[in-house]
């Protein structure tokens, strides 16, 4: 680097300080975050004729209702975790059905996936909570939300599972069959463990997206983060403050989820890495 610089025709320019890229990234992160905070600082001043007015937040409201809104975090997390487990199970079953040679199963899974991907998640929330009672299926808000999220995300994730299963080479199945394993043993012990490894990043992204889509449950009155933010903010015209509190929580949860996702990916990659021999 130095030798190349010496050959360049830049005689009088002073030597510039070289900042490693990672450090530069960190500094710029801080700058942008500080700017973001500044927009909400309430500071007002003028530079010559230009008036600078930042957003004035009602700090009294935030101080008073922060604990109230934050109580919804637990419900949000509960809903997300229950839905993640149910959606993953459903997705695996639907993917296996879509790959099977059993026509009724295969087509049923196809219909399910088409229906769930073809209609809005919000509509599904309302349908399960508000429409199904007419045919005698009455679920409380939490159950309705969990069913809607599981059905919807199960459909999307089943396509990811299917792609992952298909990405495992045909030779793996043949080797297992040649050893006398049944199709089910082959799927469970040989194909699925390899498929899971392939799809971990995509599934992680689905979990993160789902964690935020729990907010739709506020429309059916479930006392989760979004609902409590609206309950606190709406009557007091404090939309800004209430939504910012909720947003901060969602952001924080997403960062935690992402961290968990990267840990999982590292764990999964372990046996793929070329381990040192001996």
């Amino acid at each position: 680097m130095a030798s190349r610089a010496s050959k360049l025709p830049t005689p009088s320019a002073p030597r510039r300080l070289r900042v490693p890229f990672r450090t530069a990234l960190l500094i710029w992160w801080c700058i942008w975050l500080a700017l973001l905070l500044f927009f909400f600082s309430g500071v007002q001043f003028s530079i010559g004729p230009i008036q600078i007015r930042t957003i004035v937040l009602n700090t009294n409201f935030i101080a008073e209702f922060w604990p109230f809104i934050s109580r919804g975090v637990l419900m949000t997390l509960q809903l997300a975790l229950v839905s993640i487990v149910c959606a993953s199970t459903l997705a695996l079953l639907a993917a296996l059905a879509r790959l099977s040679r059993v026509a009724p199963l295969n087509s049923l899974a196809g219909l399910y996936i088409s229906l769930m991907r073809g209609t809005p998640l919000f509509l599904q929330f309302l349908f399960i909570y508000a429409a199904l009672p007419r045919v005698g299926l009455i679920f409380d808000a939490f159950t309705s939300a969990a069913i809607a999220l599981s059905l919807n995300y199960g459909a999307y994730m089943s396509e990811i599972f299917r792609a992952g299963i298909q990405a495992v080479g045909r030779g793996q199945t043949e080797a297992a069959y040649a050893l006398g394993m049944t199709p089910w043993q082959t799927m469970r012990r040989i194909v699925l463990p390899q498929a899971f490894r392939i799809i971990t990043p995509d599934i992680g992204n689905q979990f993160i997206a789902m964690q935020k889509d729990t907010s739709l449950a506020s429309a059916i009155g479930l006392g989760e983060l979004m609902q409590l933010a609206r309950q606190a903010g709406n009557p007091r015209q404090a939309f800004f403050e209430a939504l910012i509190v909720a947003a901060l929580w969602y952001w924080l949860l997403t960062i935690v989820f992402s961290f968990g996702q990267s840990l999982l990916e590292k764990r999964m990659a372990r046996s793929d890495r070329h381990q040192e021999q001996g």
Partner: protein
Amino acid sequence: MAAPIVQVEHLYKRFGELEVLKGVNLAVAPREVLCLIGRSGSGKSTLLRCINFLEEPDAGTISVAGITVPAGERSGAHKRHLRELRERVGMVFQQFNLFPHKTVLENLIEAPLVVKRQQRESAVALAEALLAQVGLADKRDVYPSTLSGGQQQRVAIARALAMQPQVMLFDEPTSALDPELTGEVLEVMKNLARNGMTMLVVTHEMGFAREVADRVIFMDGGLFVEEGTPEQCLENPRDERTRRFLERVL
């Protein structure tokens, strides 16, 4: 000839329009080493893969070690039969097909534990003996991706042997290997032949066929064109197609 351990009768197989096997009959004696040679597309690999039903034949019957499975059945009893047949037949693939998420030892004990429901200790003991036999005792706890192609294929042979099969099928076992790695695999196969394993080998290794095979079959167009001892088939072929093939590969 002693009562055959492998018997193939009137085997037909087509892929769409292409008829790959046109009524093949084959009987293999216990302890016999049979080499199948021929151009690619001659049906030799398909014949091998039909013997353990990795390809479903369109017509014909396969018998291995007393288990007879006719083509084209779909019943549950048929599937059980088919798995029993596969338990008695080991197969080694061109691309090794080791399980990448399992260690070498886990690759070897997987089927004995899951299919045969063997005790873990006895499965591990057998696996370790087999790894020693193929010269890889020190690799038991590594993952396949850390091994060379030759080592992977030797593990694959050991994995097939762990089921204690009565017949071994080899589908071009050295074709995916660098030339300098084929020797170690062929050496393992020669040992196996010396110890009396019944072997059906699809191969382009004429040296191996000449040295180890009891019988060589030259296939072309889904039929046996010529068969005999290696001397007859490789040194003095009678059929024009065999002669032309051998001129090209030797």
